[in-house]
């Protein structure tokens, strides 16, 4: 073969090589990993970070699974759903392009993705460097973006800078906390409170050494922040472990209160947001500190026949303590077990003027749960404490948001049993599982409890009213279940059992008629539409 033939062959090979390279979108070479799944009202949002997209899975009455892929900004750092499931909020860090960069410049932003077919709405946070913390309040009106981590790559960063986003208006404003050297540890947004300057939600920011209260509604301005020092006469207190809020009488604009317990500290702090012409935002908080007699594990504002009290559970003393927030006078109530958690169940348990609290996590199987009626009886600061023995230590109490039903689901710590607690009849119906550590998911409408063993193929639906159990079989290991509304049927609902292996699979069941024969099996969900966002 002479040189000319060699040249021809080389020419052919080079041409072929050019044609055979660099034609594939990069996403196909990146495994999907385990995307974060967030249930919305009528879809299940999967955050497919490698593909820079949100995949919304929706179902129809026939069990069909629809998939809608929407591009996201670069580098998703936080995600949160709207409380009503109508939106998904994604916080993205963006990208800072250098000269010659093939990726365009992109600023940090918060984007709202609609549960339906609406287009995403981006909210510019006016940030040059990203923040990585996001909370959305329980009313869905406000979001706060803050520095949750400590690893900012910015040359200079301000850990006390907050971006407060009015989600209804799509507008963001910046606020820097008055700091005495601390940085935000936990953020809480209260329900609407009656405050001297008018009703407003409060942003409560806990730092190591102080607590900041910031009215959100109206246009409070930068000076509206109320800072409360948490130190004890110069000695620093432990970080806050829990905060509770009470609005007091709705007509009274000066009786909103905040209760705080601290990590490993027997003292509890109570703040009353009293009106004062000289105070910030018309408020001058009055601070009271009381000794609970032991380290409290849970606190709550409760209404007793004697008025408002801060109830603190002190398991070390097998007791609860009622603290008068005005006088800090304490009343100890002996409990039958060292309960560590409480939640108010007044309306469901038939309470009237005084609250009823459900006590749980009693430290032993026999402790079960207890109903603590806070009305006064002769010679006692409470009306009654009724124990419902459930034969297992209750590790968690799950709400059942079923209209007209007064029910809770009691999850046992390590037992093969869970219970449906009837708050009105004060009975607990046991339901047995074949293995410990099963996962319980209460339906968003409260009609049933879904039970599955992560990694297993069995699934059960328990009707909370009739206690009827229907077991279902999956063909792939189940890692999570989500119940959502059907997109084409206002009253229909579907269960999506997710299989996280590979590119995510799903089995769809009709919630109203759960049956193995009508299940629909889907695989490779994150393969679908992977290329659309290129």
């Amino acid at each position, binding site marked *: 073969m002479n040189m000319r033939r060699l040249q021809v062959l080389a020419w052919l090979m080079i041409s072929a090589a050019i*044609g055979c390279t660099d034609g594939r979108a990069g996403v196909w070479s990146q495994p999907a990993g385990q995307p974060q799944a967030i249930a919305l009202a009528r879809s299940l949002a999967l955050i497919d970070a490698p593909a820079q997209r949100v995949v919304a899975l929706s179902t129809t009455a026939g069990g069909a699974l629809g998939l809608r892929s929407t591009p996201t900004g670069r580098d998703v750092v936080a995600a949160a759903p709207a409380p009503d499931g109508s939106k998904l909020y994604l916080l993205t860090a963006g990208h800072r392009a250098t000269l010659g960069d093939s990726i365009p410049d992109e600023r940090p932003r918060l984007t709202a993705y609609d549960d339906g077919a609406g287009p995403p709405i981006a909210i510019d946070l006016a940030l040059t460097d990203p923040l990585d913390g996001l909370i959305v309040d329980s009313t869905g009106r406000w979001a706060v973006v803050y520095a949750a981590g400590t690893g900012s790559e910015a040359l200079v960063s301000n850990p006390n800078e907050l971006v407060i986003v009015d989600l209804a208006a799509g507008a963001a404003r910046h606020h820097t906390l008055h700091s005495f050297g601390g940085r935000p540890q936990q953020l809480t947004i209260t329900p609407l409170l009656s405050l001297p300057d008018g009703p407003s939600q409060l942003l409560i920011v806990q730092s190591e050494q102080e607590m900041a209260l910031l009215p959100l509604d109206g246009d409070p301005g930068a000076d509206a922040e109320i800072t409360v020092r948490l130190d004890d006469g110069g000695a620093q207190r432990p970080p806050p472990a829990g905060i509770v809020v009470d609005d007091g009488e709705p007509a009274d604009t000066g009786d909103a209160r905040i209760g705080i317990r601290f990590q490993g500290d027997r003292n509890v702090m109570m703040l009353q947001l009293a009106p004062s012409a000289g105070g910030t935002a018309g408020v001058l908080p009055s601070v009271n500190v009381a000794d609970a007699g032991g380290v409290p594990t849970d606190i709550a504002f409760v209404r007793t026949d004697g008025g408002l009290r801060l109830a603190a559970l002190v398991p070390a003393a097998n007791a609860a303590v009622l603290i008068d927030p005005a006088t800090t006078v304490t009343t100890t109530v002996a409990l039958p077990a060292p309960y560590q958690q409480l939640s108010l169940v007044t309306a469901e348990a038939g309470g009237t003027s005084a609250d009823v609290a459900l006590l749980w996590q009693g430290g032993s199987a026999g402790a079960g749960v207890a109903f603590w009626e806070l009305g006064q009886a002769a010679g006692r600061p409470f009306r009654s404490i009724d124990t419902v023995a459930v034969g297992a230590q209750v590790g968690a109490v799950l709400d059942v948001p079923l209209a007209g039903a007064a029910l809770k689901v009691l999850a046992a710590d390590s037992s093969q049993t869970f219970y449906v607690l009837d708050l009105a009849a004060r009975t607990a119906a046991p339901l047995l599982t074949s293995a410990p550590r099963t996962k319980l998911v209460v339906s968003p409408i409260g009609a049933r409890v879904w039970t599955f063993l992560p990694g297993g193929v069995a699934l059960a639906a328990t009707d909370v009213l009739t206690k009827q159990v229907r077991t279902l079989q999956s063909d792939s290991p189940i890692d999570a279940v989500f119940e959502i509304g059907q997109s084409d049927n206002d009253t229909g609902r579907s269960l999506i059992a997710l299989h996280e292996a590979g590119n*995510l699979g799903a089995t769809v069941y009709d919630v109203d008629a759960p049956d193995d024969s009508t299940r629909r099996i889907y695989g490779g969900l994150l393969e679908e539409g992977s290329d659309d966002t290129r």
Partner: protein
Amino acid sequence: MTRGRAKRRASLAALPITGAVAIACWCADARADETGAPLANISRSSSPTPASEPDRPPARSLERWQAAMGVRTSVVRDPGLDPFSTGDALAQFSVAVLHTLRAGEGFVPALGLAADVGGSSASARGAGAELSLWRLALVFEPRFVPTSGFYVGARIAPGLLHASATLRDPSTPVALASSYWTSSLDASLAAGARLNPGMGSIGLWLLGDAGYGWAPRRDLTLVPQLPARDASKAGATELGSLSPRGIFGRVSLAVSY
């Protein structure tokens, strides 16, 4: 479109021309090697003069059947190929049988059948993805034979294309698959050169053609491969759409008799 991609596309557009020119050069070179003279001289010497008649093998004019076997490489830039291939190339095994309607030099039409079989496989986000493509086509190839042992032509090949896609993802216990039939059309420039000139009635040929293959875009709707009694439980996964069209080049070896 970026400047780099435009440049690359221009290079790709030149591929069929490149192939045709290369084959022509190869053949010319072969003839030159054989006679020790340039192609132009060969053409002159092969003109029908009484002096040259006795040199032509008499059996060659009867070689009207040709069976070819070779390799076809297509460049499919459609994103639908991305799950199944890390590049844009799609290689297929290619066979063809053609019959010329007359023998001799000059304009010689040929008809026949051709088949391409092949596919591609790749890891698509960690899952095994396979694509198989079969094509069966009628071939109409008008040829120009300037001299015995060499021809150029244009090939038109309408046909049927069968595509089969399979995805093996651990998220389901069975593979997801889809297949369909559709129409296809190839148009290419072809050239052939006999590798054993003057050596009996069976000819050995090197063939090449390059052109554009077209097939309509079709959705790839993959469903779990469940037994018939469970078919109602299979939900569909949409893997986009596939349009297996693009420029191609093919090199074959053929025998004629």
